[in-house]
């Protein structure tokens, strides 16, 4: 990294780009419940085996090494903890907590729809579960310890206060197992949390745990666990050394006393001699007779006689000479020596604790070490986490600045050499990309707006043109029609006059000529006037259609829910006569009753389509018009089917263009009808199309949206 700093900015940029682009995109699939469960159980099993059974096995093995008689007690002690830990921590508490997640995952993997609130619950639970596991581990370790060690102490008839010495087992087992299971559970549930988070988009965890708190807790737990593991080990080792030395001393002294005891006859003298065999503050010695009864006064009353009987029995088995350590509860060094005459036995019991003052000092020192470690961890952890959280806080601030204010001038400083620097660099790169793409987008939007404006201006111009043209062209038409009509009476008068002239003319030639002229004139004038009139009327109709087209979608005619059946009733009533005259049958299917539309315009749609169906019916044997429709999710679809002459596939788009008439035959119309219909439907947000085959009739389909929202986009 330090070397790279010298490299040019472009290389830096290029590596950042390649780092980003080579990264494979991860898709967050729904984790299967089985796999998640397997991963969880695997984690918990490792936790329990390594951190639950681990110390148990270690200490059990150690106990077995030290004293074959007592290893089963130690095993009992440590193995009692384990079933409790297993049952409580792994099978019960986290399982109960995990059950809702498992149920939800099963339902989702079956294909059930993902309910948002359920998803939020699963998300929160999956984030909380590691804590449950950690706390559960700790509680389990505590209960396991109290029950397991308590049973052993009770069995060994030891005071409960002795348990304090083994208390580090709780943080040792609970802390290490808790920490392991915490991180294991986090890892196992990561796919669930990730999936839920992606589903929920902007989900925020209920509880915020700072990275620093997590790090410090973990480090402290591990440090304490380490100290707890080391301290008993050190203590045990120290104890072993003390006990080893004490065994030698005890046996040597006892043998020396046994030699001298034989020299005295009186029991008092012998008892007095026993004092030389006593070791330490609490140690004591006594004489047993042949039957194993203590014949010297018992010097201590805090121990039960049975225990000495036990040692006696053992001494008999071992040949009445030797030394060993009893490690249940208070450790005791038990030494015994034979007297030759009388055949009694000397026994000395010493407590290593009496000689463990330096060891105890070291133990106290161990606690000091532990507190020191604690502070060191906190101090170093603080700086360490600062190193992580400060760049993260900078990132968060920059990201928020961008998200909330759209401020793309943000640049996060790269202040570390670890993965965080990669994050910062990727972030800067992303911001750069966003900035350019936002600028591009703005430019495109501006261009789009501009062209939309141009287009709508053009459209408006076109409509204005249509309106003005159809409006203004009508004025000269009125003149043409008016003045040509005005000629009619004059022509009639002229014709009448010519007839009169012809009748009264004496000259046959002139009469014939006049009559011929009169007939020609009559024919020409009448014909001309008829054509002029017809032309003007047609032009007028055409202008009216153009005007109608220019008026489509005006705000004066509001969109309201209408019953298409009623509209069709009205339209068919106007065609009643024509349909009967041409013996065309009408087949009707029920149409939608609540369609938002402009009543007059949809009336025009139906009447244009039906008029077309009638006009282009042709000479088929079966003549009918079928009208029907169906409702779909967001729009209604209607159709008008006829048995007419049909439209060739090459013309099916052309029929909707203005002034297009496919037939030269004598069919009324200006070639505007379908263009008008299409414009009406488009202004409603619908569309029209035709399916047809030449000679087979045609079917015109059109759609109207059911939601006005889709229409506003078109009309607005």
């Amino acid at each position, binding site marked *: 990294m330090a070397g790279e700093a010298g490299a040019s900015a472009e290389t830096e940029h290029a590596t950042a780009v390649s780092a980003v682009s080579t990264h494979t995109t991860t898709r967050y699939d729904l984790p299967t419940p089985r796999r998640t469960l397997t991963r969880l159980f695997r984690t918990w099993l490792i936790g329990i085996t390594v951190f639950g059974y681990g110390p148990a096995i270690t200490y059990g093995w150690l106990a077995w090494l030290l004293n074959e008689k007592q290893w089963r007690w130690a095993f009992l002690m440590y193995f009692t903890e384990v079933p409790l830990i297993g049952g409580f921590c792994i099978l019960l508490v986290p399982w109960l907590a995990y059950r809702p997640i498992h149920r939800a995952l099963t339902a989702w993997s079956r294909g059930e729809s993902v309910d948002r609130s359920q998803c939020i619950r699963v998300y929160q639970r999956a984030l909380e579960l590691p804590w449950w596991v950690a706390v559960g581990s700790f509680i389990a370790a505590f209960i396991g310890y109290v029950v397991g060690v308590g049973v052993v102490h009770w069995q060994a008839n030891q005071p409960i206060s002795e348990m304090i010495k083994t208390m580090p087992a709780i943080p040792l087992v609970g802390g290490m197992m808790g920490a392991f299971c915490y991180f294991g559970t986090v890892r196992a549930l990561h796919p669930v949390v990730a999936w839920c988070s992606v589903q929920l988009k902007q989900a925020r965890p209920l509880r915020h745990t700072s990275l620093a708190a997590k790090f410090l807790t973990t480090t402290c737990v591990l440090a304490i666990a380490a100290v707890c593991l080391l301290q008993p080990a050190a203590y045990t080792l120290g104890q072993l050394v003390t006990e080893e030395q004490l065994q030698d001393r005890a046996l040597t002294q006892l043998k020396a006393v046994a030699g001298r005891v034989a020299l005295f006859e009186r029991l008092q003298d012998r008892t007095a001699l026993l004092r030389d065999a006593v070791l330490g503050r609490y140690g004591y010695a006594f004489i047993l007779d042949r039957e194993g009864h203590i014949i010297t006064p018992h010097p201590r009353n805090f121990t039960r006689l049975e225990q000495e009987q036990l040692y006696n029995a053992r001494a008999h088995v071992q040949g009445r000479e030797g030394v060993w350590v009893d490690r249940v509860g208070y450790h005791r060094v038990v030494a015994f020596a034979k007297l030759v005459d009388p055949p009694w036995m000397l026994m000395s019991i010493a407590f290593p604790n009496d000689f463990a003052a330096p060891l105890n000092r070291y133990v106290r020192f161990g606690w000091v070490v532990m507190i020191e470690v604690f502070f060191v961890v906190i101090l170093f952890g603080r700086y360490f986490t600062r190193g992580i959280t400060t760049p993260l806080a900078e990132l968060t601030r920059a990201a928020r600045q961008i998200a909330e204010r759209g401020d793309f001038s943000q640049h996060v400083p790269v202040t570390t050499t670890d993965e965080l620097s990669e994050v910062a660099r990727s972030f800067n790169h992303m911001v750069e990309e966003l900035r350019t793409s936002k600028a591009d987008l703005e430019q495109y939007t501006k261009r789009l707006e501009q062209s939309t404006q141009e287009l709508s201006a053009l459209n408006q111009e076109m409509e204005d043109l249509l309106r003005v043209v*159809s*409006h*203004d062209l*009508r*004025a000269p*038409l*009125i*003149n043409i*029609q*008016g*003045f040509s*009509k*005005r000629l009619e009476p004059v022509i009639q008068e002229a014709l009448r006059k010519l007839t009169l002239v012809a009748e009264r003319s004496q000259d046959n030639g002139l009469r014939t000529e006049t009559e011929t002229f009169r007939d020609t004139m009559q024919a020409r004038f009448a014909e001309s006037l008829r054509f002029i009139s017809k032309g*003007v*009327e047609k032009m*007028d109709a055409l202008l*009216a259609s153009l*005007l109608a087209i220019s*008026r489509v979608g*005006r705000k*004066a005619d509001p969109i309201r829910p209408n019953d298409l059946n009623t509209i069709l009733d009205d339209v068919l009533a106007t065609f009643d006569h024509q349909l009967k005259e041409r013996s065309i049958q009408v087949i009707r299917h029920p149409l939608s009753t609540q369609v938002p539309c402009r009543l007059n315009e949809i009336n025009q749609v139906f009447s244009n389509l039906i008029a077309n169906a009638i006009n282009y019916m042709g000479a088929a044997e079966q003549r009918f018009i079928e009208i029907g429709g169906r409702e779909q999710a967001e729009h209604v679809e209607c159709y008008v089917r006829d048995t007419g002459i049909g439209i060739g596939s090459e013309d099916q788009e052309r029929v909707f263009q203005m002034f297009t008439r496919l037939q030269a035959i004598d069919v009324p119309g200006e070639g505007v009808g379908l263009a008008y219909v299409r414009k009406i439907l488009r202004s409603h947000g619908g569309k029209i199309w035709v399916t047809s085959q030449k000679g087979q009739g045609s079917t015109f389909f059109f759609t109207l949206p059911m939601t006005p929202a889709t229409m506003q986009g078109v009309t607005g």
Partner: protein
Amino acid sequence: MSTPKQSIYIMLVEDDEGHQLLIRENLRAGGIINELIEMRDGQEALDYLFRRGKYQDPAKSPRPGLILLDIKMPKMDGFGVLEKIKSDPQLRMIPILMLTSTDDQVEVNRCYALGANSYVVKPIRYEEFQDRVKSLGLFLDIVRFPD
């Protein structure tokens, strides 16, 4: 023809000469014999009504009893003239009949909103116009038929 004093004048404001001729003939053919004051554009009509310029002499420019007003005209269109007339306290009493080229509802509504009394769509058929004029009950008090 009756005496000019008693007659009520009808003002026709229309820029198209042909239309003017046709309307005049139509009125005559329909038996309406009132004197016509013919104006070629909106500005001229307003000058006449407000007695400005060459129409300053009240004797030569009598108040019309009815105005037939075309909408589409140069200089000032029918709407402008209508607005001016209706905003004058004296002239506002004169009934106004708008001549429109289409029955566009927006245009008609605007006429009524500005205070026009009625409207006639200029018909393409010559005969229709007479029927329209005759059918207007509005004229009964104003128009004069030959005795």
